């Protein structure tokens, strides 16, 4: 059970069994094929895969994901379908029928109405539902935005607002609530809006970088080349520069869009997935994936480029031996070759955040990270642990993996500083989780509410995930707009308000703001969002928080049922699953293990954590086993091991070889005021008189707890009549009624036999 956690690789796979890979898709996929389907659509607001037929639409839920989900069917009437979205409360279906009309179908009543575009010169590029308080549906037209409220009673949309601007194309993800509108000759000028709970935020206009291929030929940016991603609650935009073969990274703040550098790409076509806040860049042409963890400034990939693996596909030779017969084998073989042909083919559509849809075979695959493989591929265990501790999707698995990695690290006797760093990572992670406390759960609840779209708080000022005032990296966050933008000024100047909001609302969600040194910047983002929103809109805060945290929500809600909600490792688990197992396994000189445990003590002390009491006992055992009694002394005197009865008894036990150690144990018992044990040991060691003195001076505690017969027996076995006499006399004097007990009589007789003259 020790050593590296055995990875649960299913044998066989798309790219041949045993192929090295960090990312995989699991067979079987969700099959979304229906007869007469007219293509597949994805509704990212509700995470539905939609397949319209002539007059119906089939909808498969992908959250929570299961390959065996049955579709729901709705009648939508006949007509072409350009795009289709369910309203966020699931009551209405919006279908774009042409460049000029969008039809709305009430699922309950079957009521339908058509919304038409004003003039012929403009056309509808698309639409989406929003939970922004001011409107329900947003149309994106070539001439601008139109914001509508849905009025079921009127069977119509009511125009709320229009924003005039030329739009070439747009991208929107519900996850980020961010709409990016491309305009200009090269389509590289962007206007951004965020439709958050707090309201509509307009982002400053910005331009993306485009390298010119030749002097007079300007490349045009395509919608395919821009991706919005949400990681750690922050919103980024990725943009492919096909000429320079770079992937530019921009981070969105409330009042600025800040370039964050670039990543190299090895394919002119790029697809992007985000799993558990890990960014996957699919190099489509090369059919490999590069994995990044955009957490800190470091933008080095987590792993080398590796292909996507298909897992769980029935093995051909295995199935042939079974009764399914050759036909099945044949079909599977065909399917496999089909799959291999279509991987990263034109039919592959990547969906936000972590799905890929094979439109040719109508299969929906969920993309998974193989954390074991990632962990195994790096020898830098401390940083691997750091990476793993940030994963929230499969906390139990991550936890087991972290434990196994740590054990292996120690068993392999890697250098102490390396192990020390690894322990630091785990301890810091646990300590951090303690500080943010029950946050995770609450957050997921709030997130659900927000997803349902039922609650519309009245906050007028929505937010983009921004953390200008507190960005821990401090890197070029203060954009050029700093001095000009009123809002950013405000957000910078109200960190104190922020605290007071926390208190007045009593919202524990805001607690992370108090631990400003926290590493998890998503929490910091949360903090500053609130500070930006200002006082007086309290009701909106809890709502706004959920924005950009959908990634969290989806991951958290998936695991809320299971008991392990976090991969962090508590001191108790550290003892039970690392040290005690390692101690059993390790042979030879325990000096190394002692050094490691001391490092753990150091780590825990620096985070003000208590170690498991058994660990204190263990280190004493180890030191005594290697006869390092001098160090036992230092550990006890300096209270490196915290005094406890267990430790004291271990010291006494180890003290069989070294009486100083035994003394330490006895002193500890005395200091812990475990008088009974202390006196017993004194008597055992033949210190009757000291024991009696001790009882005498502290008689209230002791006389009633220590039985006289213990002393008498011990004094008798010492074969010293003086001792026995003294003990007898003591009890006769200090315990009322002792003279009438059988003990007294027995030992008086014994005494007189031992020494007749004394008895007389």
């Amino acid at each position, binding site marked *: 059970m020790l050593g590296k956690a055995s990875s649960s690789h299913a044998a066989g796979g798309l790219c041949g069994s045993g192929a090295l890979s960090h990312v995989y898709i699991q067979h079987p996929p969700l099959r979304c094929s229906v007869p007469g389907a007219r293509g597949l659509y994805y509704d990212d607001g509700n995470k539905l895969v939609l397949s319209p037929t002539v007059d119906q639409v089939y909808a498969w839920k992908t959250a929570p994901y299961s390959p065996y989900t049955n579709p729901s069917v709705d009648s939508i009437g006949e007509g072409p379908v350009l795009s289709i979205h369910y309203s966020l409360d699931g009551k209405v279906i919006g279908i774009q029928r042409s460049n000029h009309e969008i039809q709305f179908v009430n699922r309950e009543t079957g009521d339908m109405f058509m919304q038409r575009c004003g003039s012929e010169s403009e056309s509808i590029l698309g639409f989406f539902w929003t939970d922004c308080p001011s409107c329900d549906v947003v149309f994106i037209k070539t001439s601008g935005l139109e914001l509508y409220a849905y009025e079921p009673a009127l069977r119509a949309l009511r125009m709320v607002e229009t924003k005039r601007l030329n739009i070439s194309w747009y991208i929107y993800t519900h996850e980020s609530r961010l709409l990016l509108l491309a305009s200009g000759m090269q389509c590289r000028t962007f206007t951004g809006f965020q439709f958050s709970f707090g309201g509509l935020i307009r982002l400053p206009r910005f331009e993306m970088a485009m390298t010119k291929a030749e002097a007079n030929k300007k490349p045009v940016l395509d919608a395919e080349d821009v991706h919005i991603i949400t990681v750690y609650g922050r919103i980024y935009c990725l943009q492919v520069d096909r000429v320079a073969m770079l992937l530019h990274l921009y981070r969105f703040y409330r009042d600025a869009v800040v370039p964050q550098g670039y990543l190299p790409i090895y394919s002119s076509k790029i697809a992007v997935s985000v799993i558990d806040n890990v960014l996957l860049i699919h190099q489509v042409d090369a059919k490999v994936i590069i994995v990044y963890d955009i957490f800190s400034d470091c933008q080095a990939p987590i792993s080398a480029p590796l292909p996507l693996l298909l897992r769980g596909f029935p093995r051909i030779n295995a199935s042939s031996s079974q009764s399914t017969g050759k036909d099945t084998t044949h079909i599977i073989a065909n399917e496999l070759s089909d799959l291999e042909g279509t991987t990263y083919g034109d039919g592959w559509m990547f969906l936000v955040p972590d799905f890929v849809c094979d439109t040719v075979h109508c299969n929906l695959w969920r993309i998974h990270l193989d954390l074991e493989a990632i962990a195994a591929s790096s020898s830098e265990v401390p940083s691997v642990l750091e990476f793993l501790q940030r994963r929230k999707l499969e906390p139990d698995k991550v936890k087991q993996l972290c434990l196994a990695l740590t054990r292996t690290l120690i068993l392999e006797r890697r*250098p*102490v*500083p390396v192990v*020390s760093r690894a322990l630091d990572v785990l301890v810091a992670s646990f300590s951090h989780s303690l500080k943010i406390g029950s946050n995770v759960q609450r957050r997921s609840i709030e997130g659900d509410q927000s997803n349902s779209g039922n609650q519309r708080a009245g906050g007028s000022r929505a937010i983009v995930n921004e953390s200008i005032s507190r960005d821990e990296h401090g890197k070029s966050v203060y954009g050029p707009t700093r001095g000009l933008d009123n809002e950013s000024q405000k957000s910078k100047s109200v960190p104190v308000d922020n605290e007071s909001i926390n208190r007045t609302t009593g919202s524990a969600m805001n607690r992370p703001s108090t631990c400003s040194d926290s590493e998890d910047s998503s929490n910091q983002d949360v903090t500053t969002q609130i500070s930006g929103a200002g006082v007086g809109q309290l009701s909106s805060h809890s709502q706004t928080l959920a924005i950009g945290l959908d990634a969290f929500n989806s991951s958290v809600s998936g695991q809320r049922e299971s008991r392990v909600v976090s991969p962090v490792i508590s001191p108790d688990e550290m003892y039970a699953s690392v040290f005690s197992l390692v101690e059993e396994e390790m042979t030879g*000189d325990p*000096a*190394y293990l*002692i*050094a*490691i445990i*001391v*490092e753990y*003590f*150091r780590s825990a*002390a*620096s985070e003000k954590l208590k170690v498991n009491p058994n660990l204190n006992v263990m280190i004493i055992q180890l030191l005594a086993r290697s006869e*390092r009694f*001098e*160090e036992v*002394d*230092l*550990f006890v*005197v*300096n*209270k*490196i091991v915290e005094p406890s009865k267990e430790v004291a008894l271990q010291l006494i036990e180890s003290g069989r070889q070294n*009486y*100083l150690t035994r*003394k330490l144990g006895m*002193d500890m018992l*005395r*200091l812990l005021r475990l008088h009974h044990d202390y006196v017993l040991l004194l008597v055992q*060691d*033949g*210190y009757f*008189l*000291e024991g009696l*003195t*001790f009882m005498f*001076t*502290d008689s209230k505690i002791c006389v009633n707890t220590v039985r006289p017969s213990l002393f008498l027996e011990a004094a008798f076995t010492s074969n010293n009549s003086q001792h026995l006499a003294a003990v007898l006399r003591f009890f006769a004097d200090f315990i009322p009624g002792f003279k009438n007990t059988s003990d007294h009589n027995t030992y008086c007789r014994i005494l007189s036999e031992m020494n007749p003259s004394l008895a007389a």
Partner: protein
Amino acid sequence: MDGHGAILTSHQSDKVAEKNKKSEGIWRVDALTKVLKEVHSLFVMFHGSLRALIEKDASGGIVRVHLYYFIIDYLNNFIVGNKVQLPSFHDCLKERGTVQMLTVGREAAIAVQSLVGTMESLCVGNTACDSLVLFQDLLVSTTLSPDDTVNLFTYAVMRLTPHALSSSTNSWSYLRKSTVSQVSTGSVLLTAGSAPGEIYASGDTSPDNRSLRYHVPRPLRRENWTKGKDGFLVCESWAAEIADPVSKTPTLLLQKTGERVYLCVYQHKNLSIILLIPVNSVISGEQWLSMMKQQLLENVSLKILKVEERLTRGWGGENAYHVKGYRYLLVDSDRSISRASPPGKVTTLSKDSLLALTKLREEVDIEKKRKKEDDPQHDKDLEVCIRAGNNAWVIARLTRGKELYMVLEKANETLLYASDAVEKFSSRYCDGAFSLD
């Protein structure tokens, strides 16, 4: 009840007062024995046992040369003005042959242990390498047995700590020159003129050998050690061992294991780290050692820096262990540890008090010896309070291997007061070791 509550009557202290006139000559026998023991154990630590040396050279020449320089260098410590002054009653609140520890908080202690553990793990593959960590003149951590710790600690405080290094070049230098300048080179010329040389070379008069130098290691010589650029102390004129003329790094013998080890000392500000590397584990001598030093610095210098900072922050100054109203000596004889009022505070005591305590300690020493002969298995408890001639309370209390000596000059006249004062001291500074509850 085994000396409990025994009180010497005051006429005994009157006797002490009578001796005042010739008091300079009052020595406690045990204190003097300890001096002899100390010089002997130090000698053995560096040169090995006398028996072994005699076996090497039956004529005794080597032993004599070694002893000569060693004792000369050792006595150097006792030179005040121009005469040797052995420990007298002035030193009754000191205990030779014990270690003084720095009291550190839990986190600092962990930091130190972490440093020690890391150093050990880096040191040598499979052989244990021992270490001592000192801050100022106080011990912070040790991995050696109590006896070895005492020896090395004594040596370190004498010659290695920053304080020892600076005093050897300042106030002590003129003394050294005036007394033993003629032998300060550290080598013995085999000439008829020099006394020890004569002893050694008496049978050898051939002119060819007249210039031959026999090197005698002189570990106790002052100015032996200087701080090198890399932070390691350099032993400048450590005479090469006869057996190993290449080695420049001093070696010493551990009592517990009988193993010879290299003595490497790293110093950062007030932190001294003594590393003892088994000679057997080092294959290529000096070269390997310097490589190891390099490796060590690369890996732990940051830790050393942090530990030093932390200890300096927690350091209460040289009067850190002064307890107001008390002049005390606390000895843990099992662990060879002692703590006492700072010397500056002890000097404020009157001569009468010091003499009374010396006398009391003499008595206690005798009592201890007697008890040990009676029943070597068990530590005995003992409590003595004396009202000295000058109305000071002079107190001794022994409990389970721990000893507390105390002088209370400005104390109330009742015995109850005195014993109360002990009780308070015990519960506050000794974890209640001398308390009865």
